[in-house]
């Protein structure tokens, strides 16, 4: 199970944080700090995995943004890399050629997409189409709330 997912910039600015287990504020801050320093200190051409306490850390850089998650010991690192990749693909599909700015300015959207993709630290839906569909369905509300209310969703 994934314990947390963090997105931060090359400068170590946090862009998105998702915690799948309850942790006190202090521990969260410590993790964010440790992750940014550890990941940013990694040299090029090293592998995408690290250890932190008894968690496995898997991270990947996409343009100026680092995606970083903490896994339990029995989890598969490669698979986690693909989870990160799929999330990027989803963001890309939603925003259209996604960049860091999209995530900064629409971070709540990034959260919504994440909530459709992962739930309780496990993959909920792997299909790009379905996720896009359900996000769209919710987004539609914004424009045509009245219209929507009069007919069933989906």
């Amino acid at each position, binding site marked *: 199970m994934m314990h947390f997912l963090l997105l931060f*910039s090359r400068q170590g600015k946090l862009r998105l944080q998702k915690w799948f287990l309850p942790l006190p504020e202090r521990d969260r801050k410590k993790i964010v700090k440790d992750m940014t320093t550890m990941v940013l200190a990694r040299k090029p051409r090293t592998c995408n995995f690290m*250890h932190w306490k008894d968690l496995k850390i898997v991270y990947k850089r996409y343009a100026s943004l680092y995606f970083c998650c903490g896994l339990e010991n029995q989890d598969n690192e490669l698979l986690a890399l693909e989870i990160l990749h799929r999330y990027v693909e989803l963001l890309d599909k939603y925003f259209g050629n996604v960049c860091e700015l999209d995530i900064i300015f629409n971070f709540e959207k990034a959260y919504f997409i994440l909530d459709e993709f992962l*739930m309780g630290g496990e993959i*909920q839906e792997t299909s790009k189409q379905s996720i896009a569909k359900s996000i769209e369905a919710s987004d539609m509300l914004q424009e045509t709330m009245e219209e929507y209310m009069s007919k069933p*969703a989906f």
Partner: protein
Amino acid sequence: MSDVVEKTLTALPSLFDSQTGAAKISNRLKQLIKSITELTSKHDEESLIKQELSAMKEQVSAPSTSMKQMREIMVRSMYCEMLGYDASFSYIHAIKLAQQGGVMEKRVGYLAVSLFLSEGHELLLLLVNTVLKDLQSTNLIEACMALTVVAQVFPKDMIPAVLPLVEDKLSHPKEIIRRKAVLALYKFYLIAPNQVQHIHAKFRKALCDKDPGVMTSSLHIYLQLIQESPDAYKDLTGSFVTILKQVVGGKLPLDFNYHSVPAPWLQIQLLRILSLLGRDDQSTSELMYEVLDESLRRAEMNHNITYAILFECVKAVYTIHPKAELLEKAARCIGNFVLSPKINLKYLGLKALTYVVQHDAKLALQHQMTIIECLDHSDFTIKRETLELLFRITNAQNVSVIVEKMLDFLRSCSDEHTIIHLAGKVAELAEKFAPDNSWFIQTMNDVFSIGGDLLQQDISNNFLRLLAEGSESKEEDDQLRLYAVDSYLTLLNGDASHLPQRFIQVMSWVVGEYSHLQECVDQSEVIRLLMKLLEQKSVSSETRVWILSALTKISDGQTDLILELAESISSSQDTILRQQAHELRHLSLDSKLHEWVLPRGAAWDDMEVDSSLSFLDGFVSEALAAGAAPYKPPHQRQEELCEQRALNLEPYSFSLPVSLSSCSITDRHSPTLLSVSSGLSGNSTELSQKAGASTLILEGVKRVWGKDGYLPQKETAVTASPVDEPSAAVQPVGQQEAAERLEPQPEPSTQTNDKQQLASSLFVGLSTQSSTSLLGKSEAPPPRFRKKPRPHGSSLSSSSSSGTSEKSSSSRTSHNTTDSFLYGSLLEEEPAGFDHTPKSITANGLGQNKDVKEDRRTNTSQILGSDMVIVRPNTIQHNPSTSSDLTTLLPADLKDLPHSDVISLTSDPSLSVSSCRVFRDEALLLVIFISNSTETDIRDVAVQLNCDQLETVSLRGNIVDCLEGRSVSVCHYALLMDDPHTNVSFTGSVSYQIQPGHTNTLSFSGTLSTADFIRPLVVTTDEYGKLWLSLSHDVKQNLKLLTDAGDPLQTTLNALKDTLQLHIVDIIGSEGIVACRLLSGAPCLLHCRVNGSALAMWLRSPLPALPDCILYHCQRALAQH
């Protein structure tokens, strides 16, 4: 600020314009982000955000703020929180937004709640109603949001409220709802497994759901369930195999493909489940061979995701019952990983090797050059993983090279967790394979100085114990000790200020105990060194205590120096130090007393521990006669304190137990142990004598306790070591093949010479051992430092020796070796027909001591309440024909107590072990019967019991010198439960010798449930009422009502009473009140009311987890009825 952000800032206006709707709403956010980006200093940012926050605060409380604006504010406060600023004023508004807003606002409100509040937050209670409403909503989106938030943050106590609604969603027509519901239930299962117990049947339905997505989600739950009890789900193996077959065969809709691989997440989940099901189970494993083969074959595309599947496949192949053909394929797969130029794959390859090397050591040999390369890799993670692999293949020949590599790595490592982890491994290797004394001491010095105070306590404890207990030969032991003393004196002569505290403690203990062995060093010189240490400011007060007790041991004849020292310390602020100084002075003035209390160089085996503290009996009875209050164990005291002041929470009620526990902590970790308690006794004339005696006892305590009491971690570390052990057994055959394979290989010219050299030194053990086995010299070198009374060390030697003897008869195929490896029990079985020469030396002189213990029986039972364990070995001769009823052998004082049936725990040809639970008011007594099933005597039978979850319990091994043929030895352990657990498992082992020098070990395990620890609590209705109001933690649940006979309430309560030992206080109309307690500790009150066809149960207890556990057992009891 980010360059990218800066660069794009100029383009911002157009970016905004291109977006619709959403952008307008969060315009303020954009302004905020923009202005933050323009700032240059952290300070400016802070003041800007503060300003922003106060503006928002004003805005949220203004009545005119619309929901839409509120939503925008919420997004901004989320942003501020992400930047690390406190926006807690908006939490309540987030809940309001989720409650009152339209769908759009709700969405943001729920998101804000899930980001702001974590599971325990009190405001979450306010969300429960909203979630309930939305779960019932016909609007799909609302229901989705509610399910999402339930899985993200939800108070544990409130789960019963939403559970029925979430359960209903399992049969919702929309698959997205079903999927979310399954995941929400999974989450519930993780946080409160007892509460979703009744819906297991529905999980099965989810598994058979027509939507593959729902089925995939249900696998999360199954993986968890199967991990906990694989046997209960063996029947599902066929279904899982079929599903995997279909997935691999591409039968799923294309939508589930990920980079044209069919449903990889699903595949991996299934592979994990299958490996759990197939472990150690041949018939189940056979079902999955075909599909595993298929998966290995199909996953050929060169993409990360296929490698992820392959990795999981390989692990499964090596976990389940082995099949030669599959193992071969899997090994080839690992080769692909290891040799891949991609660093991520290399890393996984190393991991896979680490995993399989225990099954198949030759794989490591095949890849030795790659491993060497990885060892010098620039990537920290790869290096660490390589060392992990090397750790697994360490043997007596390559240990020094591998340990050297590990220490090198440790020196350059700064990560605390890694240091702790690896230093522990180095210590373990050093202890197991050390080639000689000086190397061992030097390595341990390195471990202590590098690991410093991060090291786990048990490393130093083990080290000291090893020095103290020694091996069979006194000469060798003294040599080792001498080395240690020499090395430490040299270190102390240098600059000692940088040494870690833990290391100084170890050194001072060793010097204190053994410096007399070194004759060419003057004792006063040693004293001077230790006193120099005492003067250092960096030395902590705990360490000072260690140093002082070392000084106490060697003070003999150096009265002047010591008196001066004692004088200077006796004015110390630290009471423990002062106490020690007094003792020191007393002892140094009276050399006879000193000699008697601290005999120089006395063997530890001779020391006896009077764990019943009977020498205090006189003192206790005197005090009681003088009107002192009788002793109560800490838990009882705590509970009474709680009861007395129901409203008064932690800060007060804590003080007494805390100080007590801190006492007991010091006595475990430092040699001050009983000086504290002797100080409490306060009898000045006896003081020094008692203090002296207590020091003696301390050492004994260490020895007896070390094993099962305070070294549980070590325990697991050692149990993990079968990794090495079987590989030793497998090596002779596996390596031989590998060696043959390696021989014809021409020297690759590309490899540099030193790498080759390193390879040969690293893998030396693996290949040389195989060559010796070719010559017929089968015996692997025994571990150098073998602890005498340790069942582990000895089981290791016995199994390796029988392993080698078996080897000669087994055919030499790798398949066969793996087979025999997997069935470790085969190896452990000692062939019958040893000669039974009686051992001449009685191990601990326990024989004489037994009588003494019997005499003290009356005293000890008095003290039983004080967390003390009484172990009473008594051997009973009986006729084998009537052996079936062991309960007749229960000690007389236990016979009358309620007890369970005798269950057989385990047996082997010579011994059988059974247990019986006896329910005593203040404890659960676990009685263990060890019956000798042979005609011959069995010697040195020692029982050892471990139970991690019963933390306050003190356990002690029980040793019987000689168990005559066909006789039974009975011993019992008192177990206490402080933290309620639904089920607690215990493990243990019996070690015994049929033939001197060959210790056999028979391990057993079992489970105890809370029900065993529940005792009726007899109270009146009035008392019940008062108690009810004073208790805080409550749980409510509907239970099944038994309606088969008579009054349903009465019948149900009686059924519960019978199985759970509850006390029915009163039944009034359709309500019943019942009371019980956890042993003599925390009470739990149950209030039952008939509610239609169900029994509404309301439980209250001061312990949060107790109602849950009791509820669980009530549910089970009623279900079984």
